[in-house]
């Protein structure tokens, strides 16, 4: 796509403002995480401290089992992502390529659950998990998140862009569904699967309300819960430590995004199939 230079100047200004608005909080968080609390209060707008310190990070590692918490977050996000992608992909495959009675109705019902607010399912889920004896455990956090209508929706859309004739050729060659899925559909849907996975990972990584309900002991905490420890009224607000935890919280998803960004952008701009 070509934009003539005359058009591009105002557009660039818009882009720059947008980028500034998006980047500023991150730079602010990184900058503040290296300041002492006093320094931060005295010069809130200076992005970087003249006397940078690691004491905020030190505080986090001293006051909470920080490594365990990071590992918990990573475990939960990974397990949730793997299960969600597998269940979404299998369901999407069935919805696109299987012929069965009531398929459209079933799909409609499933997709309509996207519009259910989390708060509607929160209490029933909580009761089920605690009756299963899984409260204050990582499995309790993971279990209700293993399937996802939004993932099914996204992957169904992606699979629908694969020309049906490709599947028909494979059917004529007596391929099993398993072979078709592995050798044809999955490679062609890889950009969509990758970006959906990253999206799942980031959502699970950032999840706050549900872990707050389930997890009680600090050694089971996830990073967003740890973060909350430093800004709640109980612990007293120590916002430079909170900023340090924020930085740790965002590093992993950010790294993932940078690694796979070409897939993410690809999914939103084209189906990836020519």
């Amino acid at each position: 796509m070509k934009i003539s230079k005359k058009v591009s100047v105002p557009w660039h200004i818009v882009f720059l403002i947008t980028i500034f608005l998006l980047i500023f909080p991150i730079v602010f968080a990184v900058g503040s995480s290296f300041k002492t609390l006093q320094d931060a209060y005295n010069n809130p707008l200076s992005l970087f401290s003249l006397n940078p310190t690691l004491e905020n990070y030190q505080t986090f590692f001293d006051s909470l089992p920080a490594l365990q918490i990071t590992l918990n977050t990573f475990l939960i996000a990974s397990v949730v992502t793997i299960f969600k992608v597998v269940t979404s992909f299998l369901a999407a495959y069935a919805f696109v390529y299987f012929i069965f009675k009531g398929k459209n109705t079933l799909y409609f019902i499933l997709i309509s659950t996207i519009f259910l607010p989390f708060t509607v399912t929160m209490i029933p889920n909580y009761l089920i998990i605690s009756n299963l004896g899984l409260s204050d455990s990582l499995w309790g956090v993971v279990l209700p998140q293993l399937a996802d209508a939004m993932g099914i929706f996204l992957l169904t859309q992606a699979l629908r862009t694969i020309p049906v004739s490709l599947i028909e050729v494979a059917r004529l060659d007596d391929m099993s569904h398993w072979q078709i899925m592995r050798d044809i559909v999955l490679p062609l849907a890889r950009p969509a699967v990758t970006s959906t996975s990253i999206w799942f990972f980031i959502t699970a990584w950032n999840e706050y309300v549900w872990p707050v309900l389930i997890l009680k002991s600090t050694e089971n905490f996830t990073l967003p819960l740890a973060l909350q420890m430093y800004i709640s009224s109980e612990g007293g607000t120590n916002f430079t430590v909170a900023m340090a935890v924020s930085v740790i919280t965002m590093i992993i998803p950010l790294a993932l995004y940078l690694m796979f960004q070409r897939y993410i952008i690809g999914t939103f701009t084209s189906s990836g199939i020519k």
Partner: protein
Amino acid sequence: MKEIRFENVKKSYGNTEVVKELDFTIHEGERLILLGPSGCGKSTTLRMIAGLENISSGNLYMGGKLVNDVPSGKREVAMVFQNYALYPHMTVKQNIVYALRMKKVPKKEIAARLEDALTMLQLRGLEDRLPKDLSGGQRQRVALARAVVKQADFFLLDEPLSNLDAQLRVSARKELVKIHEKYKQTIVYVTHDQIEAMTVGDRIALLNEGVLQMIDTPENVYHRPANIFTAKFIGAPPTNILEMVYYDGHIQFGFQKMAIPDGWVGQIKKAKSTEMVFGIRPEHVEIMKEPRENVMFATVKSVENLGAEYAVYLDFHNEEVIVLSSEKEWHAGEQVYIRPNVQHMHIFDKATTNSIGYPERMVSRVPVFN
């Protein structure tokens, strides 16, 4: 026994009947063309053979076996799709051998078949390219190669040449015939292009609105159409169809009449039709400026340049008659004389639209394409 037999086969989607009733046999080793206008059910028919569509009622036999409930993969068919359906993430070579590898065909055998196909379809040197890096003609040849290496009994092609330009089409047609001569599969070929049908087909099955109109050799479909639809669909410009009355050895159009041979008189008398229509191809009507024996007059409406010839559109008793002429000198409004070549005329029953048949002794006069 690699024949395909349709027995009262119907296909409907909800209340829409796409294929109304098919009852015919495709012989072992022949090239049968399914021809017809868009939406006539030809692709659906092909997809029923492939097993990609269910049959609503009736029976389909392939190689002597009832296949109504046999899945695609077990029907021994290879198919070439209109959009080629090449796997975009696989190279040319992978596309060609993928199905063979999955079927656990011995490696030596795969290599041999691949070599054969690459040579025959001139794909050597392109083995490691992806489909997106190929031209349309090359993609089409890869699709053919992929179907050929299966060495299936039945070879189905769904408008395989329609995405190619005119020149490539001619060479692709020849390639296809070459493939068939080598492997002798039973070929079913769907097209809406009558030139393709004439050049590739051993027989043509002409469909319209889900009904088989005629199934016969290209020569017979052209020269002895079974009904008005066939006469008008095959050939360009289409066959002229005119209202007529038979009277005493003559065919009468309005107040003008034309003598016809005795053979036709007998044929008309034998036919029990009360109302008939007359058909004649544009190339079988002579046009002239001066009257001669057994001519009728008409008025020129317009002239169309077809390159080699001119199509002259005439007003003849308020009906349009198209005549082909090598001369250019025809002007709108001019009165001209026409003389249909009665050796090539057709007469159809007006009610059923079916041909009333052809006089016995005229059979030998049907010219045959070389």
